């Protein structure tokens, strides 16, 4: 399959639904080891994304991803805003002028996005940030040559859950040191929602 503009629009709708539904949950995760705003930030940002992209027409995936990126950048704030903003910006750049995205292109876009996140946040895998989900997913994606919505979702979920046992080394949770162990990383959970939404899109379109 190929991801086109409609797929990405659908992806964002689904991601927004999940985030709105889990706004309080995400916030409570951030209260435990951060400052209690992650759900609020993500809900505000994705609501704005939906507002923005549903009011425009897109002829290619790159322009759509760029608008998503810019909206996240200017509406989420905090640490997650620049990170998700950068991720979608890098995807947009990697898919310049593509009106749809095949599997290798998608993997390439994910690779660029991850590089962007890591550069912006200076985090590595294993530091209990959303990098853990993105990098684990990318590793899994590279092992295959086409979309596998089930494995994709499972991998994201496992990666998200694996953050529970980690000690945070980046972001606010890092100030808690060993007290951060035993709690899920909020950004990894929101990343999981984003990717499980994408998995649903893929599943439904096969």
């Amino acid at each position, binding site marked *: 399959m190929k991801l086109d503009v409609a797929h990405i629009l659908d992806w964002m709708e689904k991601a927004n639904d999940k985030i709105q539904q889990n706004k309080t949950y995400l916030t409570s995760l951030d209260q435990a080891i951060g400052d209690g*705003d992650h*759900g609020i930030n993500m809900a505000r940002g994705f609501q704005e994304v939906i507002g923005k992209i549903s009011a425009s027409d897109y002829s290619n995936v790159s322009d759509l991803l760029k608008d998503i990126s810019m909206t996240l950048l*200017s509406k989420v704030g905090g640490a997650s805003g620049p990170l998700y903003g950068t991720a979608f910006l890098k995807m947009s750049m990697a898919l310049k002028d593509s009106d749809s995205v095949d599997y290798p292109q998608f993997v390439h876009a994910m690779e660029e996005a991850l590089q962007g996140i890591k550069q912006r946040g200076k985090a590595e895998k294993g530091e209990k940030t959303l990098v853990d989900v993105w990098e684990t997913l990318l590793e899994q994606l590279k092992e295959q040559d086409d979309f596998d919505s089930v494995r994709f979702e499972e991998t994201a979920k496992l990666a998200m859950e694996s953050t529970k046992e980690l000690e945070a080394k980046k972001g606010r949770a890092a100030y808690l040191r060993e007290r951060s162990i035993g709690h899920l990383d909020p950004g990894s959970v929101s990343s999981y929602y984003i990717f499980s939404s994408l998995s649903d899109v893929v599943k439904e379109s096969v």
Partner: protein
Amino acid sequence: MKKIINDPNSAVQDMLDGFVAAYPNDVKRLPGTTVIARKDAPVTNKVGIVSGGGSGHEPAHAGYVGEGMLDAAVAGEVFTSPTPDQVFEGIKAVDNGAGVLLVIKNYTGDIMNFEMAAELAEAEGINVKQVVVNDDVAVEDSSFTTGRRGIAGTVFVHKIAGAKAAQGASLEEVQAVAEKTIQNVSSIGMALTPCIVPAAGTPSFELKENEMEIGIGIHGEPGIERKEITTADEIAVELTEKVIADLGLKSGEEVAVMVNGLGGTPEMELFIVNKKVNQLLSDKGITIYDTFVGEYMTSLEMAGCSVTLLRLDQELKTLLDAESKAPAFRR
């Protein structure tokens, strides 16, 4: 949650309007933004100074906008760094060719958003430099790559960089004195109660009736250590000793002291803490050049306080004493 607000989602907007309504001759809000700038910004031939961060730290940061201190403060949502586009608006509004210094508190979010704004500004040919305040000595682990947080010491950085810029110093000079201030300022805080982010509606952590949290940040996040509540004197000693040790302060040196309330603590208690801080410093032969007791960098309605010491030399003393017309720091 009991708060005097209209709607959690409009709290920051309402606050900014109310702030400008209070000081209409001194500050302006850049239309359509969350930026509060000096009414006369950009000031000719002066380095602009921009700071900001999440809201909920009032009077920081807008209260420090004024002649002799900040040129603009950029407000984010409560405890959430402002976004790059907003910071960029702040930078543009205060630059008049002499360049702009960004005073950033060391949080991943603040750093990333301000850095992206700086990139945008540089792309438009504005000369931007930045300093990162990391005065919180609560986390001292050297393996700790994220680095220390920026808390109340930031106010001294605003004051001193602002005074230097007001003297007509160059961007490099203003940055250098801000760096020097950062090198010489340390803080640590403690709390008796958590606070409630309006949009969350619930406290971020719970403390028992006999518990306090040492090494608290200013975003309602838990602290470094939870223990049984003790006397004001013991709290003052614990906080002050940590700060003295961190700065390596010795007998004969001179400092400015800040005993900062986190929002919900009566001023009476801050003065009680100051009594002991003062005694301890005097006992160690450290000279107190000036003292600031009050609410400078808060965390909504959190009950608690922080102690900040700034090591002073002649240059810093002169800059600390210089006139400031910022509403929350009149000198």
